[in-house]
C-alpha cells in the first residue's frame, strides 16, 4: 500500500510540475523524496533472506 501511495504522489507531483505552479511542484518533490527515504529506512530493517 505504501508504494501505491508513493507512486500516486509522484504522479501528482508530475502533473503539478507540468500544469501547476513551480513552487508547489518543488515543495511536493521534497515531500516525495522524504517519503521515499523514510520508506527505504523502514524496509532496511526487513529480515534478510539469503538465496543460497
Amino acid at each position, binding site marked *: *500500500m*505504501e*508504494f*501505491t501511495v*508513493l*507512486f*500516486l504522489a*509522484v*504522479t501528482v*507531483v*508530475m*502533473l503539478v*510540475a*507540468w500544469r501547476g505552479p*513551480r513552487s508547489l*511542484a*518543488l515543495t511536493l*518533490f521534497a515531500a*516525495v*523524496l522524504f517519503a*521515499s*527515504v523514510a*520508506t*527505504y529506512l523502514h*524496509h*532496511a530493517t*526487513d*529480515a*534478510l*533472506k*539469503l*538465496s*543460497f
Partner: protein
Amino acid sequence: MTRAFAVTLNATGLYALALVLAAAFAAQLLLHELPCPLCLLQRLQFTVLAIGPILNIRWGPRPSHYALSLLAAAIGMAYSTRQVLLHIMPGDAGYGTALLGYHYYTLALIGFAAAIVLLAAILLFDRQFEPDGATPPVANAFARAAVWLVIGLTALNVVSTLLECGFGACAENPVVYELLKGGS
C-alpha cells in the same frame, strides 16, 4: 547549447526513463516476477528522476531542476547499491532473473550512475540558462508526448503496486498479486 536544444535533450531523457519503466513492466509481466520493496523503491526513484526534465520542459532549463534530478539519482543509486551488497556473497544467486548478465538492481545502479554523469555533463553548458525572450519556452509535440508517456507509466505503477501489495504492507518477497489472490 541553446535552450531549445536543452529542452529536446530533456525530452529525450524522459523517453529513456520511459524505456526503463516499460522494461521493468515487461520483465514483471512476461517473466511473472514481482518486484520486491527495494526493487519498487528503485523504480520509484526513476520516476522521481523524471520530475526535473518535466520542469525543464515546462519552465525552461534551470540549474535547480537539474539539481532535483541529481538528488533523485543519488538516492536511487544508494538503494541499488544496498541491493547489490545484499547479494554480493559468493554463491548467492541474486534476486530475480539476470538480464544481459546483470540483475535488475545492478542495471539500476549503472542507470543511476549514468544519469548522474549525463546530468553533470549537461550542466556544463551555461548558454541554456540565458533568457532568450521566450520564457517559459513552448514545448513541442516531441516533448509533450514524452511528458505524458512518463506520467502514464507512473500512473500504471499505481495500479500495479495496488494489485501486488493490496491494502496492507508490501511483502518482503512477493510471489502473488495480493488483490488477485482471491479470484485465482
